[in-house]
């Protein structure tokens, strides 16, 4: 990697960190899910219990939370720095992923910047949502897979990060199996017995070991391994029983429970307060629709390009997006907008690749124009995601059309 590119990555990291860190200690109290996630970290470490968080989700989240509480203290930084750091790292990983897919630095930069400035990714990076660090682990595993070049240690490192993702949420199971199959397929590894054994043991056993290991404190409550299997089956079946009425009616995400609408219509939920006649303060979870709506067409174009060029690397974002998105579409339980976060790196990579392709034919100006317009739009939405006091007028149309819970001070 050249020096210029390292500087570029550092700048991207700084931008992502800055947008996520700015005024991080506001609100100064535990907000939303933090009320469950923060005490659950300590409760898991000390007692092996998941309360007051959900027991169905794997517990690596609690271990990391406890670590950050020890590092930064029981204060807004201790609660939120985990997501800030992993969220910023995800922007860099998106750059590396897109760079590897397209072979172009510009595509990497555009994809990285889109993730760094995406309002949904930013708002979730400022609280304790597990999609941020789980997504970063997943992306780290994929980037290591892309670059492993048949180096055993890199594939093992990739498997380790995949295990961390799986020990955070179950979202990543389809992606995990897909990468395992792709590794077997590459260089016809599936034809060589020792390679098959190496890939399968590495890419199945290491992630499973990390997943089981994350339950160490739960085992400390007296459980045997056979009970662990039963517990995981219970968790799986329990997750299938979730219905909209299972949730707290005050939950802000309830108005949009289907993954089908994420990339085709505006989804804006959250809460906010109008202050005086013309100002307000909002924490909104929203898709940045003018950008997100390009996802499905871009993925289609990328799939066509990959098929024409017979290039599996180019198809990787499409395959990973499809595998993960299919889970959200076909799962029986409601899926809320925050679950879209693990898809964003693949969506933005597809968009960036397509813009670069078009710009190559129509002129570089198009790339710069798209870059400027997309960044401007995301930054315009930034105050709505980060509880900044803003004049309401420029955002009136968005707020009126939203399903956010808005109050007057």
């Amino acid at each position, binding site marked *: 990697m050249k020096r210029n590119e390292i500087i570029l990555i550092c700048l991207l990291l700084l931008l992502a960190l800055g947008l996520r860190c700015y005024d991080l200690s506001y609100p100064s109290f535990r907000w939303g899910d933090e009320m*469950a996630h923060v*005490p659950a970290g300590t*409760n898991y470490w000390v*007692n*092996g*219990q*998941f*309360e*007051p968080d*959900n*027991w*169905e989700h794997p517990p690596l989240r609690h271990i990391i939370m406890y670590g950050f509480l020890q590092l930064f203290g029981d204060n807004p930084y201790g609660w939120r720095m985990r997501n800030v750091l992993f969220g910023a790292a995800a922007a860099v990983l998106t750059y590396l992923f897109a760079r590897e897919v397209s072979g172009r630095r510009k595509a990497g930069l555009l994809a990285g910047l889109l993730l760094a400035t995406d309002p949904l990714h930013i708002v979730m990076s400022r609280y304790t949502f597990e999609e941020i660090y789980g997504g970063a682990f997943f992306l780290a595993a994929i980037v290591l897979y892309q670059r492993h070049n*048949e*180096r*055993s240690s890199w*594939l*093992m490192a990739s*498997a380790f990060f995949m295990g961390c993702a799986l020990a955070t949420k179950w979202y990543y199971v389809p992606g995990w199996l897909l990468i395992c199959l792709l590794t077997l397929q590459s260089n016809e590894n599936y034809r060589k017995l*020792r*390679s098959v*054994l*190496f890939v399968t*043991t*590495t890419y199945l*056993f*290491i992630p*499973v*070991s990390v997943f*089981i*290991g994350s*339950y*160490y404190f739960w*085992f*400390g*409550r*007296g*459980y*045997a*391994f056979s*009970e*662990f299997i*039963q*517990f995981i*089956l*219970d*968790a799986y*079946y*329990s997750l299938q*029983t979730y219905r909209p009425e299972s949730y707290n009616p005050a939950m802000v995400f309830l108005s949009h429970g289907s993954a089908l609408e994420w990339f085709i219509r505006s989804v804006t939920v959250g809460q906010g307060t109008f202050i005086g006649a013309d100002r307000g303060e909002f924490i909104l979870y929203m898709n940045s629709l003018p950008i997100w709506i390009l996802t499905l067409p871009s993925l289609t174009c990328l799939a066509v390009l990959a098929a024409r060029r017979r290039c599996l690397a180019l198809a990787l974002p499409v395959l990973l997006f499809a595998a993960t998105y299919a889970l959200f579409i076909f799962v029986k339980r409601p899926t809320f907008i925050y679950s879209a976060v693990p898809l964003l790196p693949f969506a933005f990579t597809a968009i960036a690749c397509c813009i670069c392709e078009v710009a190559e034919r129509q002129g570089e100006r198009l790339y710069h124009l798209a870059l400027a317009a997309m960044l401007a739009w995301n930054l315009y939405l930034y105050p709505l995601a980060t509880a900044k006091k803003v004049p309401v007028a420029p955002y009136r149309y968005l707020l009126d059309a939203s399903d956010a819970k808005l109050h007057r001070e």
Partner: protein
Amino acid sequence: MYRNKTACSLAATALLAAVISVANCHGTGSRIYAPGKETVTVDTPEKAYAIWQQKRVKGRTLVLFDSYPHMRGRFNYRGEPQLERSNLVEFSIFSNVIRKIYFIVPDTAWEEFLQKDTTKVIKAIPQLKKGVSLYNLNGMPMIATTPSSLPHLSEQALVYINGSVFDPVEAQHLLTERGITGDITVIYQDNRK
């Protein structure tokens, strides 16, 4: 071309075996049983906890002969919860005295039990004629079953019998029939009755 494939395969396999083995040993090694066997009658549910605490039991299976029980609520987690008359089971879960529950429902009340709003079934247990995994907010493995379907338990259990719901003699007879031994059997008899 991958290098050291065999060594890496063996290492990954060994890692998985080690993790399973360590986790299993850590779990089963954390269980604490009371020396000997005893049956105690108490006049309030909280006293059952005092007995378990006195014997320092941990990580145990509870065979619960009671009405659908102290499991409805969630801890409003503000520091340590306090033991109250109505939360013996929840409190014991929180203190890691109990890790698993067999909740006994009379055979005659089974269908009615399954229809109740408070009964949230995760799935049926195929090995038991009448047996379901119950959802609860603690994630505690909780199996509801009837006396006729109660399986044999290979480990010693804690037994709690609410005398106003089950006849203690019949309950103890059932346990003997199923080959279930309990190191501490607590019979709750409300003095007012």
